[in-house]
């Protein structure tokens, strides 16, 4: 035997490493366990919106619930079919007038710049009306903002973004008057931190009221002249913020009609960041439109004073305000605007068929895998709908029950 000093240790170390890897590779994935009931079950997988069509197309998931235009994109490219919109999901009536996205401002901005806050609310409401009245215009603007007007590549060819937007807009309702939904996710997270959960307390109605007064001409806007710079976050990959895109890209309309508007500093930019809030031809505030990756991330940035407000999903907003983010919800932006999508060969065409399919697959030992964005209103919809149908939701790859949301 050749005796080489580092060799013995090396052999032992290398050997145990290989053993560890083999064990690790062969071992099943769950590492910790919760309790699974005897009810039929589905598996909930967290993913980002953009990856969902790919996951469905490669048969790694059976369905996803996500916002537009991902739903229309998947449908038109043949990746999947939409079998339900939020209004179809139980409990009955729960999502009919539920705010999916909202305008949020940090409370010190509301206090220190009340008139700017009111003008932002007024403009948002005006833009919502404009988007509802002129869908063709809004579709064009949104196609340019979200897709850059470039053809969208799909597994089977390419799609015209305008076509996608037309399809998407048929599934969206923009309204400033929806109410903040009660969210099971938020409730459990907030109560786990020994705080009380009350969605109505998260809304500051005074700003929207002042905004309405300005909008219907009851009183003229009176900006303070301090020219604050206000950062507003949003996710640039969703159609749900179409009113924001219309507000900026169709600024002359708002200037002419209301006397105040949000003008991009460089109108040629496809997704303007630097904008100026104009009141009767005079600059009143610098507004920066800052794209973000996730609603939660944008809310955290607001808490860090790096942004001052956002167009953001209602659940991320509620979650963080419930946990202490010093912001308030000003008003809603839209209802609906999401869809439950399954593969083209799935044996169902509506929610009831989907539930039956889930029961069959659960009985066969291969529970359906459904993807949503973590801590989104879509996750809340999935969990509440299945709880209503007495189907247990577990987190993908584990046997932890998601609990009755």
């Amino acid at each position: 035997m050749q005796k080489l000093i580092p060799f013995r240790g090396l052999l032992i170390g290398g050997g145990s490493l290989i053993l560890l890897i083999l064990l690790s590779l062969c071992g099943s994935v769950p590492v910790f366990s919760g309790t699974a009931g005897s009810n039929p079950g589905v598996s909930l997988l967290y993913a980002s919106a953009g990856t969902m069509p790919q996951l469905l197309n490669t048969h790694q998931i059976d369905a996803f619930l996500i916002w537009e235009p991902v739903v229309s994109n998947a449908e038109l490219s043949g990746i999947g079919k939409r079998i339900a919109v939020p209004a179809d999901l139980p409990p009955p009536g729960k999502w009919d007038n539920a705010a999916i996205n909202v305008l949020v401002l940090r409370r010190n901005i509301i206090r220190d710049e009340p008139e700017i806050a009111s003008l932002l609310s007024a403009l948002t409401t005006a833009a919502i009306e404009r988007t509802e009245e002129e869908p063709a215009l809004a579709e064009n603007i949104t196609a340019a903002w979200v897709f850059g007007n470039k053809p969208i590549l799909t597994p089977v060819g390419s799609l015209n973004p305008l076509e996608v937007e037309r399809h998407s807009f048929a599934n969206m309702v923009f309204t400033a008057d929806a109410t903040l939904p009660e969210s099971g996710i938020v409730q459990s997270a907030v109560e786990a931190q020994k705080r009380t959960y009350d969605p109505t307390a998260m809304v500051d109605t005074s700003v929207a009221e002042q905004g309405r007064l300005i909008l219907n001409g009851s009183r003229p806007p009176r900006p303070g002249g301090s020219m604050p710079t206000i950062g507003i976050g949003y996710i640039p990959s969703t159609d749900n913020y179409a009113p924001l895109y219309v507000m900026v890209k169709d600024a002359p309309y708002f200037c002419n009609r209301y006397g105040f508007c949000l003008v991009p500093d460089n109108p040629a930019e496809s997704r303007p960041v630097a904008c100026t809030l104009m009141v009767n031809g005079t600059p009143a505030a610098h507004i920066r439109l800052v794209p973000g990756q996730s609603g939660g991330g944008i809310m955290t940035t607001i808490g860090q004073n790096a942004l001052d407000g956002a167009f953001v999903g209602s659940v991320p907003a509620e979650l963080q305000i419930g946990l202490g983010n010093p912001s308030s919800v000003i008003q809603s932006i839209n209802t609906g605007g999401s869809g439950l999508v399954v593969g083209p060969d799935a044996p169902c065409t509506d929610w009831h068929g989907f539930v039956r399919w889930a029961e069959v697959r659960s009985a066969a030992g291969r529970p359906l895998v459904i993807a949503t964005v973590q801590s989104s209103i879509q996750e809340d919809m999935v969990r509440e709908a299945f709880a209503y149908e007495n189907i247990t939701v577990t987190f993908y790859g584990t046997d932890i029950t998601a609990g009755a949301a």
Partner: protein
Amino acid sequence: MVLISRPALRDCGKGLFLIVLLLAVWEAAALVIQNNYILPQIGDIFAVLFQPAAPVLGGPSMIENATVSLREVLTGFGCAALLAIPLGLVIGSSREVGTYLNPAIQILRPVPPIAWMPFAIAWFGIGFHSILFIIAMGAFFPILINTVDGVQGVRRSWVEVAGMFHATTFERFRTVILPGALPMIWTGLRVSFGVAWMCVVAAEMLPGTTAGLGFLIMYAYNLGQLQVIGAGMIVIGLIGLFADTLFRAGQERFFSWQGRD
């Protein structure tokens, strides 16, 4: 085996002093700012750390998260080592093979592992194996490069001694090339373990992840719970420190001869 000598312990104390000072400055600033979104209080961070078995933000506990990440890192790191060391030995021994492989390696090497994410999901599916792929991608190249350097740095005279005693090709490899290259391979492993730890945070952003320190940090970010992020960072740092200490102890133990003859 004694890992830390007395003078090392004294140096440790000096290092600890700065850490305590930084913590004190942090805490003072946190008390002034009073905003968990900007500077969470040390007490809140330690409250998370001191209950390692309690669920964090309604999810897995800190121990469970650390276990998941550690398993991913060790497996990805191990896979990378199993591939990179033999390949590095071959490239280092044969100029011909190197000529074929080097351009591809040099092009792939600077690509951040996380850029592979969309492909990883399509090729390896959701979950563990995609994460492994990302981590292994990051850990692979430091091991490979160091192994190649190690083989090429083996002294000519050592190889000639083997030739003088008529060693077979395999014996020359086993008794000279491999042990001679081992210190560099070890250095490669040490560097790549650090890289693997950095990759795990990015890799746990992949779909289907429900636990892990990287997942915890992203989740806490979405919830604005910066004290949890701070606790996660400390755990990652401590595990990294522990691993590096082990690697250095191994270096002292096995390769004390390196560069001294």
